[in-house]
């Protein structure tokens, strides 16, 4: 069953068509990847899915209901949680307080919310830093905090915008099992990611966005060898050149 359907979405900023008739389906229980060169419109597409932007045309359907015009906080209540590519911690608060804001969405009481915050912190590996001010976290810590806050809202769908960007390879290796664990709990994940090691490792299905349009989709391995995708990243003729070199670098 499909949990999220983006139907022919377009978003125009003045003269710029940032997202052009893009469609995408996220199956319940899957980890779906969204990749594409810089400036392809991936983050804009996320903003449309989470309600931070309203599309110029097209529909967003979550769990069978049209939520195209709904405010972000209402979508969060439905179970859509997003992280930000540029991390947005509540700087003045501790890690615990940061996560608790997410937990308060489903828990009205302070004790329940704080308990939820702690259990999420354990899940993403922030437990030792619960009382640290968010402003004092490293990049890796802040990425985990983004993830933790989103998880604390107990979402059905998690939209992850480059949670691995800026992490070193060992930090990436540490966080992959965390993401797998989240999926294993039944949370569906749609992730924008540039770290191909992670995309290959995690995703069941990958969509490729270039210049606002969906140019390919399929299992990660097939998509990566798709000449259209290679050309979108490396320029016209690149696919042919790589083939000519015997695929030595592919």
């Amino acid at each position: 069953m499909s949990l999220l359907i983006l139907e022919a979405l377009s978003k125009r900023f003045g003269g710029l068509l940032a997202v052009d008739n893009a469609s995408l389906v996220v199956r319940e229980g899957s980890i779906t990847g969204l990749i594409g060169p810089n400036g392809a419109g991936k983050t804009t597409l996320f903003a449309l899915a989470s309600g931070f932007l309203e599309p110029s045309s097209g529909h967003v359907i979550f769990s069978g209901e049209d939520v195209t015009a709904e405010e972000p906080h209402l979508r969060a209540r439905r179970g859509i949680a997003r992280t930000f590519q540029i991390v947005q911690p509540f700087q003045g608060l501790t890690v615990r307080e940061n996560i608790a804001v997410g937990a308060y969405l489903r828990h009205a009481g302070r004790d329940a919310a704080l308990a939820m915050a702690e259990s999420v912190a354990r899940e993403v590996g922030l437990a030792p830093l619960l009382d640290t001010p968010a402003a004092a976290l490293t990049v890796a810590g802040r990425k985990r905090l983004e993830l933790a806050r989103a998880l604390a809202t107990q979402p059905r769908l998690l939209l992850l915008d480059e949670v691995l960007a800026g992490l070193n390879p060992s930090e990436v290796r540490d966080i992959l099992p965390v993401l797998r664990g989240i999926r294993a709990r039944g949370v569906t994940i749609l992730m924008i990611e540039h770290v191909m090691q992670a995309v290959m490792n995690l995703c069941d299905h990958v969509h490729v966005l270039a210049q606002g349009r969906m140019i390919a989709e399929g299992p990660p391995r097939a998509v990566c060898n798709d000449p259209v995708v290679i050309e979108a990243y490396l320029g016209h003729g690149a696919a042919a050149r790589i083939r000519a070199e015997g695929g030595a670098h592919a």
Partner: protein
Amino acid sequence: MKPRDLLPLLLLLGALALTPLFASNLLLNFLVSALIIALGAQGWNLLGGYGGQLSFGHAALFGTGAYATAILQVKFGLNAWLAFACGIALAALAGWIIGYLSFRARLRGSYFALVTLAFAEVLRILANAADFTGGAAGLLIKLQPGLANFQFASRAGYLWAVLACILVVGLMTLWIDRGRFGAQLVAVRENEDAARALGVDVLATKLRAITLSGAITGAAGCLYAQNFLYLDASIAYGTWISVELLIAAIVGGLGTVLGPVIGALALHGLGEVTKGLLGWLTGIDLVLFGIILIAAVAFVPSGLVGALRRLRMRGAAR
């Protein structure tokens, strides 16, 4: 709420409640004035300190509370206590209206500050021009000491009335500080987009805050009217009140339960001392307030309460 959290608030207010046993009328007068500002600053602090929406026009709420109590008694013969309740409700309504108009238009930061200032100034000019507010001549509440009229023969009565309000608001602030609404309000202050992504209804949260803030600051206005029994537009809606409330909250400690009370007492104490020493320099206390505000923002952004906390932590670490 743990009893330990309540202790500083109860100790401070308890000590103040005992002052009539030994203090002179002069000191009591000073305390009542300072504590009315403290109460108003508690209201400002809820919106500005916890919610990060820095209002420069809380006089609009203070004045609405003050005028409502006075007019309802003088023109409509309403009982003073009922007028007090109506004043609080109307000030809350004024807060909601100002909030609805400016937050829905997504005004933030200095734009919000300017719009609130404009609201206060418009109300001041209207109150100065209209008939039913007494115009420029102001409004006199008839002196009728008696509990039924919310007027007291001794200053101690007013002092206890203000302290009771401060206690109620202090408990409410503490309760908010420890609960969901407080967490969401602080989240809005820290980062609106992140708060929205986590399911916080930013507009509703801000509206709740400014409505409560209006009720509290309005209550301060009501008490002002009852204490001095006289109002005019430049008192009730004057810029001085907006400025004093925000300085008290900032100097005392933004987003803390005790900050506004401590800030107001410290500032007024200092103001009185300078006026005593340099009385021939009219307005010297305002110059001093300005300097203190700059110094507080530059050197102790967490205010007196934050500085005290740091001292205590350093003491404990030693």
